[in-house]
Structure formats: C-alpha cells, structure tokens
C-alpha cells in the first residue's frame, strides 16, 4: 500500500510585475526561510530534508540548467535535487510520487519565475515551437490562445461580454488575496475597451507578465506531526499530453485535461466533480476558465456560456484566488492554484475563504494553449 502524502507548509512572496530589485535566489530565500520558521525543518542527513524538487525554466531564466543557480539557496547541497521544467504542479506530483513510493520521507519543493527579465515573454514562448513548421510563423503562447479562444467561443457560445465579466470577477477575487499581483479593479466596459492583441483576445483578456516564487514542504503520513497539525493530503494526481500541432487538437475541448482529471479522480478513490468543493483552474486567458471547467466535467461540454451567465464560477467555487488571469507567471500557474487550494482547505484564505471545503482540485498547464495538463486532488 502506497504511503499517504501531505503538504505541511507553504510559503510565497507577493506576485509582482517586476521584481527588478531581487535576484530569483533572493525571492526563493524568502520562501525558504518562511518554511523553516513555520515547520522547524532541518537538513540533517538522517531526519531532515534530503530531497529537493525545483521548478524553473531555462529560457525565462536565460541560463540552461536553470536549477544550478539556486540549489545552495534551497538547501540542496549534497542532497537529491531534481528539476521540473513543466508547470510546477507536476513538481508536486513528482514530490508526491517520491514519498508515496518510499524513496524519501520529506521533499522540499521550490519554484520561481521572473517573466519581467526578458524583453518579451512572447519571444520566450515562441521558442516552445518547432524550428521548421511553426516557429518561423511567429507562433507564441498569446496568439495560440487567440486561436483557441476563437475556436472555443464558436463552440460554447461565449461572447466578448462573457470574457469581460470573467476578467472583472478575477480582479474582484484577487483584491481579497494579499499575495495576488496588484492589478486594479476593472469594469466590463474597461475590459472591452482594452486593445485587441490577438483577436478575439484583448489585452485584459490575457494574464499580465508576473514575477513570483513559492515553496512547499511535503511529508509522509508517519512524520506529518513533526511539522504541522493541519496537513493537506494529496490523494490524486493525473497528467496528460495533447498533440503538439494546434491543428491536431480539439482546441474547443481539452481531451488531455479530461484524461488527466479522470486519472486523478480514479486515484483519489473514484470521485467525481460533485465530490469536490473548490476548483482552481489555470486560466492564462479569459476564455479558459469555462473551457477547462467543461474539460474536467464540471460543466457539460458546450455549456460554458450558460455556466458563466448563471453564476457557475461562484456556485462551484472556481478560482477564488483570482486565477492565473490576475497574474501568476508561466510555469507556476498550476502551483499557484495548489497554493490557493492549500490555504482554502486549511481555512487560511482570509477574506476570500470558502465555507469549510474538504476537497479541492488544482490544475496546471504547460505548453501553447494548454498542450499538457496536470490535475491534483487535495483533501483535509
């Protein structure tokens, strides 16, 4: 029988537009020191942290083997260290597997991303495309989202008004989140007056460039009491990779997310969306919250517009954090979703606290327009 795994503590810095005054090592150090303070964790080779998982991206950091820039800062010296270069939610899945399998008792997970460092985050994501067929055409994550948005709007009946309302809600929710990127409240009129960037997406329909760092301590059940009296259990994880070429995917419904969520539901004991009290979906663009809600089975396929019109996101407690749409960096959107779920399940979400959630779903995406999906089920 695999061992149970919990997140014992989490720490983050505030999501900001441009942390020019701190190296990413310094950003991580703040999280690291907070975790030590919260839990008293040590780096004793017999009883302390011996395994570290880091999450970062080479191109965004402008250095290959980006993890070797901060292994000393996160206590990895002479310890096991592995890097996740997909969304950090996969790092959580990896750390979870490491403990379930008995490989180690404790895993420290650390993630960072500074989207502000490069002249253009879109040039970074252009490099995610192959050099023969797609990169020379200027494809990047923003215009890939533009193509996906048009496909999804046509399928689901979403209009520009729906997209505007999603942004208004994201900003409203984020205003209650002290670690959220400081984005101003907007009206639907202001959203629809923002310039088109990749039709049908407007500037405010896409997440703003963001810098952020985060850390978490994971532990096996036997030793959880050493670090916390409020563990959050990781009970299900699933991931799934879709086709690389946009033309070979159904852009208006993510089969990969459907598969990833089914795998996570099965691992969590055969649950369904009806058994989940809170959802954090990785919405890089305004059309994606409803698209992902359809793909995990929370909303019937094609019913996204109706779901938004009838208060579905509030009724189903979706993206109380403000979502990625309000501002989390690439590669950490899913980890930010898991952090919100962690705080909500512990009753530590402040003004945006949901009433007594027992089980939550966190979702992360990697690649253009959500090529790869990861789903994590978390429980009290």
């Amino acid at each position: 029988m695999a061992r149970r795994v919990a997140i014992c503590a989490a720490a983050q810095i505030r999501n900001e537009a441009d942390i020019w005054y701190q190296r990413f090592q310094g950003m991580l150090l703040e999280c690291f020191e907070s975790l030590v303070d919260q839990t008293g964790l040590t780096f004793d080779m017999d009883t302390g942290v011996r395994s570290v998982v880091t999450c970062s991206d080479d191109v965004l950091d402008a250095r290959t083997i980006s993890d070797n820039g901060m292994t000393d800062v996160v206590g990895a010296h002479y310890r096991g260290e592995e890097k996740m270069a997909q969304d950090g939610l996969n790092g959580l899945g990896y750390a979870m597997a490491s403990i379930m399998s008995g490989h180690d008792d404790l895993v420290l997970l650390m993630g960072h991303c500074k989207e502000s460092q490069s002249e253009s985050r879109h040039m970074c994501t252009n490099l995610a495309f192959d050099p023969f067929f797609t990169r020379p055409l200027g494809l990047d994550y923003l215009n890939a989202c533009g193509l996906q948005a048009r496909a999804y709007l046509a399928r689901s009946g979403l209009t520009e008004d729906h997209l505007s309302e999603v942004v208004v809600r994201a900003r409203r929710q984020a205003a209650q989140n002290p670690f959220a990127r400081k984005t101003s409240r907007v009206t639907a009129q202001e959203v629809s007056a923002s310039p088109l960037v990749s039709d049908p997406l407007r500037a405010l329909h896409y997440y703003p460039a963001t810098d952020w760092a985060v850390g978490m301590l994971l532990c096996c059940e036997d030793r959880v009491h050493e670090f916390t009296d409020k563990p959050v259990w990781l009970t299900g994880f699933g991931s799934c990779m879709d086709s690389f070429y946009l033309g070979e995917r159904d852009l208006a419904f993510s089969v990969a997310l459907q598969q990833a969520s089914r795998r996570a539901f099965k691992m969590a004991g055969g649950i369904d969306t009806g058994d989940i009290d809170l959802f954090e979906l990785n919405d890089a663009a305004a059309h994606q919250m409803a698209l992902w809600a359809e793909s995990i089975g929370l909303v019937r396929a094609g019913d996204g517009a109706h779901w938004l019109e009838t208060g579905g996101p509030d009724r189903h407690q979706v993206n109380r954090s403000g979502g990625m749409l309000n501002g989390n960096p690439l590669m950490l959107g899913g980890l930010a979703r898991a952090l919100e779920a962690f705080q909500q399940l512990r009753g530590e979400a402040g003004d945006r606290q949901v009433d007594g959630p027992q089980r939550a779903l966190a979702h992360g995406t990697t690649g253009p327009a959500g090529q790869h999906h990861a789903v994590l089920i978390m429980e009290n």
Partner: protein
Amino acid sequence: MPSDFDTSDCYTIPGKLALPYTYFAGRVGSRFITTLRDRHKIMGVRCDHCDMVLVPPRQTCERCLRDLSDQWCEVGTRGEVVNYTVVRYPDRHQPRPVPFVLAMIRLEGADTPIVHLLEEIAPEQVVIGMAVEAVFAVKTTATIRDIDHFKPCDS
C-alpha cells in the same frame, strides 16, 4: 516592492541570448522541405489505420504509433480557413509588421489544418470557411516559409 525595501546597491546588468543553431530536419522533414522548395508541392503522410492525412508529415503516428515514413501523399496547395487570429502586438519574432493574420488552413486532401500567414486581404474581411491558396516565396529559406503566405481564391 515592499514600501520599506532598501534599494541601495541594487544594480541591473543587461544580457542577451543570441546563439545560431543548425537543426537536422529529420528524413521526413527534409523531404517535406525539399519537395516544397524544388517542386512547390505540399506533402503529408497518410495513416491508414487512423484514416487520417497528417500535415506537417512525421515519421510515426502519435495515435497508433505506426511507422508512416513511406506513406507519403500530396495534398493541395489550396484549402479552407478553419480558424484565425489577427496578431496586433509587434515583436521581434513576428514574421510581419502588425497587424497580420495567422490562419489555420485545412489543405485539400488533409485532415489536420496547418497554421500560416493569410495576406492580400484586410483582417476584417477574413471569414471562417473561405478558400485560400498558397503563394510561394521567391527566395527559399528551407522552412515552412517557402510558402510565403496564403491568399484568398475562388472556391
């Protein structure tokens, strides 16, 4: 930034990544590129098991894992717009001054649309379902941009 943050000795230095590469296109990719370059023909591969014609071509079907490297078939240089976006943010990696149209075009005989530039039409006039044809580049770059762009045509 926290309001009490001390920014003394906080200095930023400029950096740049610029590193030329040479990529092997693969045997299948090589034949696609050289056929496009020398004969102005667009080639796909057919997976009989999945009953699909895939463009761009590849050696292996990702669905059934069968080898497709000898399953060449020519698809049309004309096709249909099935999706598009108008790119309006200028950037160094963009192939054209903005605004320009990136369209998903299903070529005649293909099942999977490719993404390419759609020109010789105002962005406001683009509609899903319109017929388009390839305009080949005068000078080869040995990439997909040996098709310079697609333009509207009679269906």
